[in-house]
């Protein structure tokens, strides 16, 4: 009885509070575009004094690649820290000579690998045409030559430090000395983002450094850096229990569109990028018309605009046309399944094709995931607590620029097998497809979504990343307009999308289990 009263009181407060909050959510952004086409978003605010988070985004990611150059977007992210004719070298002319020499050797090597070594591979003589253990004598001598050039450029050759033209990681040194922190970049399917936090009085340095590398990157260490990326791939994908399986599941799920290959790229492609390919990519996607900057924090917007104009106007707008992303995902016609065995707990992932970001159905789909998630969500109450067959269970709606997916993930508990989670998931779906959500349940989820949209804006860097994604996928205004769209979702909308997308023929199922448990499962099935 006491609790009922309590609830009613709460409901009143909350509904008032949230209606208020949704309308109050306004991030005031000053937007402007330079004559060369580069757009900027400025958000001055003082809650975190003395610091500014600043970044820029290239509207390009792995979706813009094609077989043969997969992973090149991510490789570029590495290249962007390698300097220019000013930063990263003590002798730009000599350094260029090194790079030209290296390119000549590596081009010959590539040509040999792609002809002779690929043929040996096709004949079954060797298992990896790129692996140096399979080098022919000619290839081996070229590799030594390339290595000698790289070492000389770094001052680690026979002649000692005198031949060095590189100043190692000078880009980082300049920022570190100036109090830059959290400098990093990321590449995703649809965008590449470079960001840092600097003291408020160093915004001009940011403008200098970033416009310099956008104006004049020379792709220094173009060949040696791919060893690092190979190690990154080994770390993230090859040496983790599920890494390679998840990569394969992803490629199985997407049939035709550019989300089918991993952001880090296929290993063969990673070895093969040529300087010409990099140049075309650079001249196409890293032009000011395809870039935007975001500055959030404690700064004077007038002064910031002055710096931005002063420095970023030097970027050449270029003349390459942006190739549109053409290939759409084809309709899936039949269920797909993958059975993986390895060092991982028995888990299941079920995926469905849905819609791109900003699609009218993306809002009810996001809400649907929220109905299922968290401790009071349906998955926890039925699978984790109720039946006790899951240790964890969650749903997510991932809407990208050109397509989207919805997924269910569950890890079994005790003796339960993934197939039980699969069955339980279908039962949850059936409820969503046939029964209406109660007003209270919908209200609860909306409250949570509104509050978390809000909390994400508290920190400068987190707001920067939000703006980066919103603008790259849709429009930065989405950060202010989105909350009202979620607020407008009805129980009917949720039921409608539950019926539209969650069909047997539209799903792909991955089941992971340990080899031992597979045996048990088979026995249980007998």
């Amino acid at each position, binding site marked *: 009885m006491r609790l009922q009263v309590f609830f009613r009181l709460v409901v009143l407060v909350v509904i*008032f509070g949230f209606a208020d909050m949704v309308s109050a959510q306004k991030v005031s952004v000053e937007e402007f575009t330079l004559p060369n086409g580069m757009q900027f978003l400025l958000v001055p605010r003082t809650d975190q004094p003395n*610091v500014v988070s600043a970044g820029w985004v290239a509207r390009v990611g792995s979706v813009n690649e094609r077989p043969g150059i997969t992973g090149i977007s991510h490789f570029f992210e590495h290249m962007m820290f390698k300097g220019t004719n000013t930063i990263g070298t003590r002798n730009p002319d000599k350094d260029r000579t090194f790079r030209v020499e290296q390119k000549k050797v590596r081009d010959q090597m590539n040509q040999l690998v792609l002809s002779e070594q690929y043929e040996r591979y096709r004949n079954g003589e060797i298992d990896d045409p790129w692996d140096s253990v399979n080098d022919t004598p000619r290839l081996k001598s070229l590799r030594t030559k390339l290595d000698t050039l790289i070492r000389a450029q770094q001052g680690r050759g026979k002649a000692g430090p005198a031949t060095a033209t590189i100043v190692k990681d000078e880009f980082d040194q300049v920022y570190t000395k100036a109090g830059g922190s959290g400098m990093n970049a990321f590449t995703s399917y649809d965008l590449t983002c470079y960001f840092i936090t600097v003291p408020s009085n160093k915004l001009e340095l940011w403008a200098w450094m970033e416009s310099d590398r956008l104006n004049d990157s020379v792709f220094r260490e173009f060949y040696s850096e791919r060893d690092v990326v190979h190690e990154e791939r080994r770390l993230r994908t090859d040496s983790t229990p599920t890494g390679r399986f998840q990569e394969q599941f992803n490629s199985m799920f997407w049939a035709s569109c550019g989300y089918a290959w991993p952001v880090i790229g296929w290993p063969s492609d990673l070895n093969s990028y040529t300087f010409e390919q990099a140049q075309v990519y650079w001249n196409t996607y890293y032009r000011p018309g395809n870039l935007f900057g975001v500055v959030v924090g404690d700064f004077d917007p007038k002064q910031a605009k002055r710096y931005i104009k002063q420095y970023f106007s030097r970027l050449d707008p270029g003349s390459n046309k942006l190739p549109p992303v053409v290939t759409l995902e084809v309709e899936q016609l039949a269920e797909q399944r993958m059975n993986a065995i390895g060092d991982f707990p028995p888990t299941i992932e079920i995926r469905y094709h849905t819609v791109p970001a900003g699609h009218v159905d993306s809002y009810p789909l996001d809400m649907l995931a929220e109905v299922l998630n968290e401790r009071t969500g349906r998955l926890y109450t039925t699978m984790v607590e109720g039946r006790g067959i899951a240790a964890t269970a969650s749903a997510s709606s991932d809407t990208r620029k050109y397509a989207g997916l919805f997924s269910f993930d569950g890890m079994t508990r005790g003796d339960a097998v993934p197939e039980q989670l699969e069955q339980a998931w279908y039962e949850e779906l059936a409820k969503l497809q046939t029964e209406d959500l109660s007003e209270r349940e919908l209200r609860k989820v909306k409250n949570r979504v509104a509050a978390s949209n809000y909390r994400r804006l508290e920190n400068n860097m987190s707001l920067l990343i939000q703006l980066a994604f919103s603008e790259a996928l849709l429009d930065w205004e989405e950060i202010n307009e989105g909350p009202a769209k979620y607020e407008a979702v009805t129980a009917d909308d949720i039921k409608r999308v539950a019926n539209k997308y969650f069909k047997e023929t539209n799903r792909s199922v991955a089941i992971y289990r340990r080899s031992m448990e597979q045996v048990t499962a088979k026995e249980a099935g007998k």
Partner: protein
Amino acid sequence: MNHQALKNIICVRPLAGVIAVILLCFSQVFAIPPRPEAIEFQPLEYTPPRAADFRRMLSDGTIVYVAESHEFPLVNVSITFKGGGSLDPAATPGLASVMARMVREGGAGDMSPAMFDETLDFLATEMSVSAGNTFTTARMNSLSGNLDESLQLFVTMLRKPAFEKQRLEVVKARLLESLKQRNDNASSILAREWKAMLYGRNHFEASQPTASSVEAISREQLEAIHRQIIHPGNMIVAVSGDFAVEEMLEKLTEAFQGWERGAVAPDPKMPEAVLVPGLYHVQKEIPQGKVVLGKRGIVRDDPDAIPLLLLNEILGAGGFTSRLMQKVRSNEGLAYSVRSILSQRINYPGAFQATFESKNPTVALATKIVLGEIALIRQQPVTDEEIEVAKQGLIETFPRQFESKPTTLQVFVNDEWTNRPKDYWQTFREKVRSVTKDDLLRVAKKHLDPSQMAILVVGDWEAIASGDLEGRATMKEFFGGEVKHLPLRDPLTLEPLPLD
């Protein structure tokens, strides 16, 4: 090339653009300094906040650090209790951590767990409780409009957790599933075995629950450790956000009324184990070996702490400007991540360690380079440029210690709990400035002696031991090639498994 491009713009852009472009041409000619060093920066005066300006005491003696901030209609409450894993009974590692989870998940007062969660969710109030090694923290973030209800729920949860039986079963089951995954990932094997080598398997830094110790956890045990940790005699509060200070203090006083004060929890016990130098290995068949090497380090308040902090930046903590990153990653492409870590503890020495991963044949080479860099930094002074970059980096990023109200208050809470010298932050930058290259050489010699270090490798030994194709290094080079193969442990019992 740029001018040509600008002409192109003039052709296609409207007049306003033309003017802008012309002006910009001027600014470009006259105003872009040739190098970043040529830019003149406005000085940025910064005085770190003082704890005393935020510290208040409630009538019951509870210390509260409090700060208003009105940019968002949100309130953050964080309560830090002394003790965590450090108070686990020997037979029940992880008890404090399960208690913390159960305080949050097991219901509060006469509200069932489901009803408690439902109410919080509806209010969109976030709460969490977690136990670390030496402190347990409870956090709440609510909309300021829901502050009263949220605060009432938060304090009820802490004072009167229900520890409901079914939820305890769920928490145990989840923990059990995570135990089963102990050997799946090489990195978690590395972390587990390294801690055991550093601190001893029975010290709370390294101790781990087993399936049977988890099963045995009872409601009575939870209540006992809850009584010991969660009470006003053992806590310091931090509150920031959208409220008026005096009003907030009244609310807290009221909320804590009648809450029994117990004794402050005891200090954590010292580890007894001594790291035995040598080469160690755990078998795991993956294409990349994971390595950690190092030794026991210093306590936080060691007089050498600041020079060591700078030395560590130069050696391996300073990202791309550090020597390890340059030599192992940038120059040789042997690893994606390589770094050194100086972890400090309050009551007993922490650790100095370097970690990296490399494809199997180059694990030895990367190890050799890392050890070489450690040897070098003990032989020769660092360069002027290196110490300058490291000092400037620490001084310029110093304000970020206090970047938001919640982080600022948390610093003060931690300082009070750990008796950090009162002038620490006020004098920090001066102490950094006064460090010399000789100081760095001295602390390197004193604290980074490689003969006291152990190397631990998790990976495929056969592929790792013989080293790289060019013969630049093999694992034989370390400790005379004498390797101690450590057994993998059964994920549920932690009993050693037979070595193949």
